[in-house]
């Protein structure tokens, strides 16, 4: 993995270097192309830096593990976002079911409601909403925390005391988000189903188990598996982007706010892109 990233980086580095040269040529001829190529160059060097950061993550992944810190981070990621996720998923379940009912009843197909809701929740809503909530809550938290540790020299202090701050701070946080997001996603899906059931109960008299069995009928192993992988990737992205922004925060308290803000914006953007790619990939298997 590290080697592949290194190869990828070498290519990026070449692209960036070529752009730099082109830039010098353009600078003399046309100032507007100069600005564009400078922006592009900045983009490529950002991508380069973040790929190096990811490469470092995989190099530092091995033992000895910082178990206590990993568990503490899992607790922070999972427990702290639980209230928000509970409320959101419950509301999503109710609202989605309520809004879907009229269109289905036009065809007299309200009996499909449970499986329709289940498919929507499992395939799309639960992973995406969990990831967006985590990006907002966990991503900003990581960015701000590491950012303030950076600007108050706490990361330097770890380094000079002959300990490995990357392992302690970054690896533990990224592992925690990657592990906890799937769990949160399944939790969210379950609570949404309860919301959906309550809404159905208003119109029809079914038991929860009957509703649940009917709902899960249409859920395939592929749905389950793709959502699982997807949320691990979302969790990894949110963790690594938050850590990257915080770890590289520049001096001053402004840098902390900026790190938190960039962490949220970038990770939400990346989550959307990954969602689009994931939809493409799973559709090949269907």
């Amino acid at each position, binding site marked *: 993995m590290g080697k592949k990233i290194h190869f990828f980086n070498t290519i990026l580095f070449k692209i960036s270097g070529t752009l730099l040269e082109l830039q010098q040529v353009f600078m003399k001829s046309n100032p507007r192309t100069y600005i564009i190529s400078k922006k592009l160059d900045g983009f490529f060097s950002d991508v380069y830096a973040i790929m190096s950061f990811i490469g470092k993550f995989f190099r530092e992944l091995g033992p000895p593990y910082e178990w206590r810190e990993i568990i503490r981070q899992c607790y922070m990621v999972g427990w702290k976002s639980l209230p928000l996720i509970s409320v959101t998923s419950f509301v999503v379940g109710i609202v989605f079911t309520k809004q879907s009912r009229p269109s289905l009843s036009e065809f007299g197909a309200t009996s499909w409601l449970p499986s329709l809701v289940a498919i929507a929740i499992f395939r799309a809503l639960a992973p995406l909403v969990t990831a967006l909530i985590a990006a907002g809550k966990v991503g900003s938290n990581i960015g701000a925390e590491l950012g303030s*540790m950076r600007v108050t020299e706490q990361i*330097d*202090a770890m380094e000079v005391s002959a*300990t*490995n701050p990357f392992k302690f701070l970054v690896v533990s946080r990224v592992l925690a988000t990657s592990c906890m997001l799937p769990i949160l996603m399944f939790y969210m899906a379950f609570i949404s189903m309860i919301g959906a059931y309550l809404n159905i109960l208003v119109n029809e008299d079914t038991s929860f188990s009957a509703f649940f069995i009917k709902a899960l009928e249409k859920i395939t192993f592929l749905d389950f598996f793709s959502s699982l992988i997807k949320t691990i990737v979302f969790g990894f992205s949110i963790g690594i982007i938050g850590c990257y922004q915080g770890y590289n925060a520049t001096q001053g308290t402004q840098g902390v706010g900026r790190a938190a803000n960039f962490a949220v914006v970038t990770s939400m953007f990346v989550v959307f892109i990954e969602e689009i790619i994931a939809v493409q990939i799973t559709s090949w298997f269907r």
Partner: protein
Amino acid sequence: MHKKTRHTNIQDQHADIMIRDLHKSFGANTVLKGVNLDVFRGENVVVLGRSGTGKSVLIKIIAGLLKPDSGTVVVLGKNVPALDDKELLQLRLKIGFSFQSSALYDSMTVKENLEFPLLRNSRNLTRAEINTHVEEALDAVGLKQTILQYPSELSGGQRKRIGIARTLIMRPLIMLYDEPTAGLDPITSVEINNLINEVQERYNTSSIIITHDLTCAKATGDRVAVLLDGSFIRTGSFEEVFATRDERITSFYKYNFIN
């Protein structure tokens, strides 16, 4: 400009820290232009200089946190810029760094702050041994009662002391203090000065003390070096350094002791 030397074992019996012709710039901002300095075993060297002259940059280079552009930095016989990650880690076990902001870990208690380097570098220690080390280090700075407190509950002077205790726990041979008395009241400053001298006597450390506080320089420095425009313009005992008509140095004195 000099080629970076690739040797990592430069034998020098005398100086624990030996710096030759050190250059460092950030983009167009040239900070250090040919710094030379020796720090001998058991000696306190004070580096005096105005804000922004590159004092912090200098000790960060010594601790391997920043890479110099050129020049030699030999610490305990190792050429710091040429060390790989593992060798640097080994060297850092012997260096204590007291940050200007104290840099205590906010999310940990005083006890956890002190244990942090110990748990990760001396994995064969038992719980009881670790506790003994922590208590010893806290005792050395006279702050045993704070053991369960969080950094946010401590005063500025206490934070400084805990920061120093955290480095003492690894029994360093070299101590680097970045503005140890900055932002402290005069009485607390004197206490910190005394602590620096106690550390020197107790552990026979070789230290660099960065400051612009002349009281601190006088109290702690066996030797004083004045950094100006990227290099040391004067080195010697406190009295020697200030026995001069050089405007750049006398002005320093004038503003510190206004009468």
